[in-house]
């Protein structure tokens, strides 16, 4: 079984898993980081979204071999104590219903807002289109992205 080294949430980690194991399952089953969720396994729902070198990717469809030596961030490492503007916005808007997809939504939104700090509503909708919320909390997700964008813009 090969060994992989990568930086997870700022810490160097070594994991011994099969080379085709998606990052999602290494995080969940071997690194005890279960915030990244399994939804579809084929990059269609966005529940497993993490950042690879700062960019949102679907961790169900990228293997450990592909991230060897790279740096990833999961929902657990997005901020200390949930203080990232996107997390704060998610709380102030009270976005979740069941909550299962929300880590992925937050990771997509935070990556998007790092690149576009004054998005239009349509740009938000386009950016979030790949993340399914089965409970249909889309209005609040959209609102929370707007709220977070405002805070990020104020700080900038």
């Amino acid at each position: 079984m090969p060994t992989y080294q990568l930086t997870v949430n700022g810490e160097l980690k070594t994991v011994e898993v099969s080379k085709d194991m998606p990052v999602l399952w290494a995080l969940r089953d071997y690194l005890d980081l279960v915030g990244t969720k399994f939804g579809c396994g084929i990059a269609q729902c966005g529940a497993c979204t993490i950042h690879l070198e700062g960019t949102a990717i679907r961790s169900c469809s990228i293997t450990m071999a592909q991230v060897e030596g790279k740096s990833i961030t999961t929902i657990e490492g997005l901020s200390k104590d949930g203080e990232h503007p996107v997390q704060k916005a998610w709380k102030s808007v009270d976005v979740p219903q069941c909550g299962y997809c929300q880590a992925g939504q937050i990771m997509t939104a935070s990556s998007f807002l790092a690149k576009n700090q004054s998005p239009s509503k349509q740009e938000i909708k386009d950016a979030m289109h790949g993340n399914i919320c089965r409970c249909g909390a889309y209005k609040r997700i959209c609102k929370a992205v707007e709220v977070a964008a405002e805070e990020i813009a104020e700080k900038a």
Partner: protein
Amino acid sequence: MSSTKTAMTFSRRSFIRTSSLASGGLLIGFNLFTACKDAIKPPKDLSKLDYKDFNAFIKIAETGEVTIFSPNPEIGQGVKTAMPMLIAEELDVAWKNVYVEQGILDTKNYTRQLAGGSQSIRHGWEPLRQTGATARQMLINAAAAKWGVDASECTTNEGVITNANGDTLGYGDVAKEAALLEVPENVTLKKVSDFKIIGTDTYNVDLDKIVTGKPLYGMDYKAEGMVYAAIIHPPAFGQKLVSFDAAEAKAVTGVEDVLKYKDNIVVIGKDTWTVFKAKKLIKAEWASDKDLESTEDHDKILTDILDGNKFDTRRSDGNIKKAFANADMVLERTYESPFLPHNCMEPMNFYANVTDDKIHLVGPIQTPEGTAKHVAHLLERNEEEVHLEMTRMGGGFGRRLFGTFVVEAAEISNMIKKPVKLVYSREDDMTAGIYRPAIKYRIKASVKEGKVTGYHLKEACINDNMYGLIPNFFPAGAVENYQVDTANYKSAITTGAWRAPYANFLSFSEQSFFDELAELMEVDPVQLRLDLLQNVKGTTDERIEYSPKRMEKVIKTAVEKSGWGTKQQDTYQGFVAYYCHNTHVAQVADIVVKNNEPVVKKITCVVDCGIVVNPLGALNQIEGGIVDGVGHAMYGNFSFKDGVPSDSNFNSYRLIRMNEVPEIGTHIIESELAPTGLGEPTLPPVGGAIANALKALTGKRIYKQPFINNPDLFKVPNKTIVG
């Protein structure tokens, strides 16, 4: 009009307390079952699910911290926040000092630990407040005894008791003494105008954990020594396992075993990916001793049922035959719906550890009690040996009412004698479902001298039929000659409750029909409904479920809020008013044309759900129900070919996404009546509202869901999702 008759009595006998808490303090609870046994009126389709014990517990530590155990499973409907709010209100503690914990399955002390039928708040409304008020009175009585004063001179405010002299004691100071006191009778509940917590926007109690990715869901649960299991069900409904070759699968590093389990194959291994991967390497042979079913067959079977005369009559008023024979005009239409998978975001999973001394089960389940009993029965064990912990659920929508996956996990653990976590892939979840059954409705109405004189609703459904309350929904009581007939066809395809069972498609059918009937009668569709409601006012028919008065109010409010009939030329509107889960809803869909395609621009929604316990959570439910309703009416497309489901993942099965969500304008009727259901009632009306608006735009009617299967009416661009 049961929506206003939810009174439950509170009896001393049903109050439970435990004073010998390891942590010290007071633990009290209330047995709802004993209190509301006679008054309880669950929807029929849920009656099989064992409504039993339930308790709401309060734990007051000597430090004054209050823990409230939320009894019912949380599937995203918000009861883990709202049920404790009811207790905290009457207990009179500051919400910020309350910790909420999920109660475990406890059949001795709890009743109706169930998430289903939008009933948790409705059934908990009185008893949960009584629990809080009784606890508060016991704390007052303990303080009064300590001071040597009369309890009646003591008041409380946010966890502090004050007497006439101005002395104060915290709840924690007297919790231990309070637990030893007599349980008081006849505690007084607060007036609605005195509520401090109920009716205030309250954040989801798990919010911090959700946004920081803390373990919460069944999928996140781990235990020492646990192995993972993946399961292969027969690919087609009706098939049985003949044989399989697992040599390749067993050669995968990390695979511990491959087993036959009933007509399924189970892979055991050290992590989820390994068992998923190994599953794909198994070569299995399946067989069937009868013809496998296809949607084409069902289509014909259901039509044959409607054309035939073998029905159960569920309600019959007057004489519909006479009404039709004497009519000036008759309208008859048939409406068709597909099967639907639930597609909870968290695929089915469960942890089980079956040992000689107990059966430990952990995971997401809407029916913990019924499922625990079922497991005990199958494993020939006592029910008391089952210890079931409910996790937060990544969605329910009815799927997790059916604990098939819990049974599988328990039996697998029992076979391999190890703690095991069974995990479904998305493909397992979508293809081994308990689907919303395919249904056809045929509705016929007669009109004479400008009045609706007859109404005949026939239901042909796969496996089962509408629950017993539905024949008493609108327009029951409003039409003199009225009949509801149902029949079903038993299929090998497993079906069950899906958010707002039956109502989710019946509403579309009936509300489309009323629209067409109004057109035929040359009256405004809103006026038709208002006229019909006039006939029900003052009815003495106890069976009638809805309130004509409340229905009229939501209708009139929706007319006002949506600008019904006064919209500009480029907006086309469709109207619906529907009652289910004890709640009255009216909706108006606004459709506009963009780039030559109809677009649902806005849904105006008016809801009468009685008192709103948590407005912030309520709005989320209302909007979620509408989005869910729009999505499935438009895109929900699922069928079978030779027993095999048409779709297995989100690459082909289309769920609504952010770009497709209309504006939603919600208006809640202010009320001092007891709360009614909210997790389901806003879903059923929306499909009909859109269909009626499309008719206004195109002149054509839709009789079949999903709407994307009517491409001549409604072209929906197929958007590719790039991961």
